[in-house]
């Protein structure tokens, strides 16, 4: 049965175990790729003909911006899955995405502002790309606020899922804002169809940062989702066995 894995993941104990098994692999590859990419990008890669050394903030800005939208899409898709299949685990994943995505969005906006001042000559402009990215931050904050405002878990899950799904319309707007309208922000260099407008010496560390960021996001979402599952299933009998097992494995005593 091809859909068996999907239905299996819906079971909290199974998800908890699988996520726990994946975590070290995801986390360590994120760390190795991230450190390599950062040193390569910030130190070893050549400077730019126009922006000199200043362009290097790209190695933090572009991956954060990509992850701000990718995390949102993950949040909305898992919310939809939770809504349609009545899947508690999917709602846990969705809830875990919000603070992480909000952080990525904040980093993208902050590094963009720091970059904009010396290159464009302004900290902030109401440009379509900048404005839609700011809207994304508010969507995340709204989602988090809404979740903490509703006490009943099932109701909170449904209402927040609806907000996440409604907001997903903003994701293509962010992406295409620089093509649909005149914008101060330049068109994408890498995240597009066709050849990247960047030589390999600059592109390779950037791609490493994209990969590292994505692996880091996956690590954080799974970690937080496990915590969320523990919180929701605190009365479950499987929990004692699972937590007891991991305590035995690490040899720690509570």
């Amino acid at each position, binding site marked *: 049965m091809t859909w068996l894995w999907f239905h299996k993941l819906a079971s909290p104990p199974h998800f908890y175990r699988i996520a726990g098994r994946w975590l070290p692999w995801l986390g360590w590859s994120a760390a190795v790729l991230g450190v390599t990419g950062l040193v390569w990008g910030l130190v070893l890669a050549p400077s730019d003909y126009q922006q000199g050394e200043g362009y290097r903030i790209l190695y933090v800005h572009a991956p954060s911006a990509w992850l701000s939208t990718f995390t949102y899409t993950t949040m909305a898709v898992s919310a939809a899955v939770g809504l349609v299949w009545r899947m508690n685990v999917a709602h846990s994943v969705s809830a875990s995405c919000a603070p992480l995505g909000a952080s990525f969005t904040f980093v993208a906006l902050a590094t963009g502002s720091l970059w904009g001042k010396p290159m464009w000559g302004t900290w902030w402009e109401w440009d379509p790309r900048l404005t839609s990215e700011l809207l994304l931050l508010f969507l995340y904050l709204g989602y988090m606020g809404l979740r903490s405002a509703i006490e009943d878990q099932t109701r909170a899950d449904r209402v927040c899922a609806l907000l996440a799904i409604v907001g997903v319309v903003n994701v293509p707007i962010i992406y295409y804002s620089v093509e649909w309208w005149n914008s101060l922000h330049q068109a994408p260099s890498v995240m597009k169809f066709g050849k990247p407008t960047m030589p390999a010496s*600059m592109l390779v560390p950037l791609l490493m940062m994209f990969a590292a960021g994505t692996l880091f996001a996956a690590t954080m979402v799974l970690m937080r989702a496990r915590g969320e599952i523990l919180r929701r299933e605190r009365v479950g009998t499987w929990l004692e066995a699972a937590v007891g097992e991991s305590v035995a494995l690490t040899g720690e005593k509570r």
Partner: protein
Amino acid sequence: MTPRQQRMTLVLGVVAAVALAGFLALRAFQNNVMFYFDPTRVAAGEVKPGQRFRLGGMVVKGTLVRTPGTMDVRFAVTDYRHEVAVSYTGVLPDLFKEGTGMVADGQLDASGRFIATQVLAKHDEKYMPPALSKSLEAGKAAAAEAAAGSQP
């Protein structure tokens, strides 16, 4: 339809409805969402003198003139169809130069000259090392010279 299919339809319906609403809203506010006007729209008379707007385009090569002893600059901006003359007093961003993009805030005077109160530099999505850029420029110059030489 099973309850699950109903919920699925509901989710897809919500996304479609919000996308449609967003599309209509953005279409209605097209002019407000545009960050700047290009010279073609200015030439078409879409803005009146004295009306504040942003003008965007490429700085035409060979038109940048600084008045010695002041912070006054004059240059022309083009979208390769029409040109608009611009006057500005103030500090220009480091990336501002001839042949690259810029966005200026200001208004047209009676003669059709754009009086800017703020000038921003807009760079493109190309990145490359300085050495590569220099050799590309040299290659371009050599090609131009060869082309000029072959046609006496």
